[in-house]
């Protein structure tokens, strides 16, 4: 059963669902809602009607005459001669550079780049080992590993969750983000200052999991 907010969100997406421009995940969400809500399905029919007639209306507008094309090229002819240095944007230039390389040249370049990275890693590694040698010191104020006090969870939010949704959720549940996001949009979220028992942690986990903006949550060990 959908909440009124969820229903409202789905209803707003109906035009894009009809036009086929939602991503697969959102489209599945809309499909599921339409299957369980007859009134929403009726409103979807209205959206489909609108789409058909908007297309019809636009298709009857015709096309521009050849005058527009002639005017365009007359204006282009009147433009100052393009300087040879005028080139596409940086992203396009990089793309064109790689596209111009033969597969063999590209493979050798990749090997050379990988070798350079390995050498760099070796140099950094040796510096770190030297620094960790007996007699060296570490600052006492900055921990080098995550704190072990309290209880943290790993959490990923739903892609459609807004910043204000997340802020509200953190405030309501008295949570704070300890670290992140890491790869895949995972946050380390601090749930309690005390080390919770397994049962308590599971209870907290179940509560958090039920929130619509939470996509994934797991206890850290």
């Amino acid at each position, binding site marked *: 059963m959908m909440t009124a907010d969820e229903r409202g969100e789905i209803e707003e997406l109906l035009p894009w669902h009809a036009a086929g421009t939602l991503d697969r995940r959102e489209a599945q969400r809309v499909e599921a809602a339409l299957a369980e809500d007859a009134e929403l399905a009726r409103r979807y029919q209205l959206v489909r009607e*609108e789409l058909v007639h908007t297309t019809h209306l636009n298709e009857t*507008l015709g096309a521009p005459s050849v005058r527009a094309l002639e005017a365009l090229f007359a204006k*282009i002819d009147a433009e100052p001669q393009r300087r040879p240095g005028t080139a596409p944007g940086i992203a396009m230039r990089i793309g064109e550079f790689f596209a111009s390389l033969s597969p063999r040249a590209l493979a050798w370049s990749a090997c050379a780049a990988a070798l350079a990275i390995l050498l760099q890693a070796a140099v950094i590694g040796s510096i770190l080992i030297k620094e960790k040698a007996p007699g060296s010191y570490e600052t006492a104020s900055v921990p080098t590993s995550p704190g072990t006090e309290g209880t943290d969870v790993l959490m990923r939010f739903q892609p459609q969750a807004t910043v204000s949704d997340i802020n509200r959720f953190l405030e309501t549940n008295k949570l704070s983000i300890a670290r992140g996001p890491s790869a895949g949009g995972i946050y380390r979220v601090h749930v309690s200052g005390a080390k919770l028992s397994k049962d308590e942690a599971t209870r907290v986990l179940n509560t958090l999991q039920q929130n619509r903006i939470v996509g994934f949550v797991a206890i850290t060990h």
Partner: protein
Amino acid sequence: MQTNSDEVLIGRIAKGDRLAMQVLYGRHHVQVYRFVLRMVRNETTAEDLISDVFLDVWRQAGKFEGRAAVSTWLLSIARFKALSALRRKPEEELDEDAVGAIEDHADDPEVALAKKDKGAALRTCLSKLSVEHREIVDLVYYHEKSVEEVAKIVGIPEATVKTRMFYARKKLSELLKEQGIDRGWP
């Protein structure tokens, strides 16, 4: 596939390739023209504007970074040009279509006929929406632009795109109701 090859064309246009310009124009000019025409409601103005839109493409192709599809970029330029033209247009130049968009509650023959044909009524009401509502309805339904793309073209947040579309549809229902067609929503 066409999206990728559009970018290749833009790269060639940046180097001054006129043939690439002609291909890109051939591919997109009808869509751009219809989008502009629905906003300015004047064929001559719309034709002038599309040559200006593609002239901007010729001039700015070197700056295109490929962050959005070429068609999205074209519609953003077209929208800007159309709105500028609307701001310049003196009131006496309002053409018949624009005058038709001004609300009139009288049951004229057109309305009477529209009542008989729901589709025709819907199309009449689509034409009576405000410029702001018309453009969003066209972008979503006809130009098949996603929420993110509409946000880029219109220059508003994605959440506003969704609510603006919702209110455009609501207005459409109200206009239909005035013509005696109750869709039972909103």
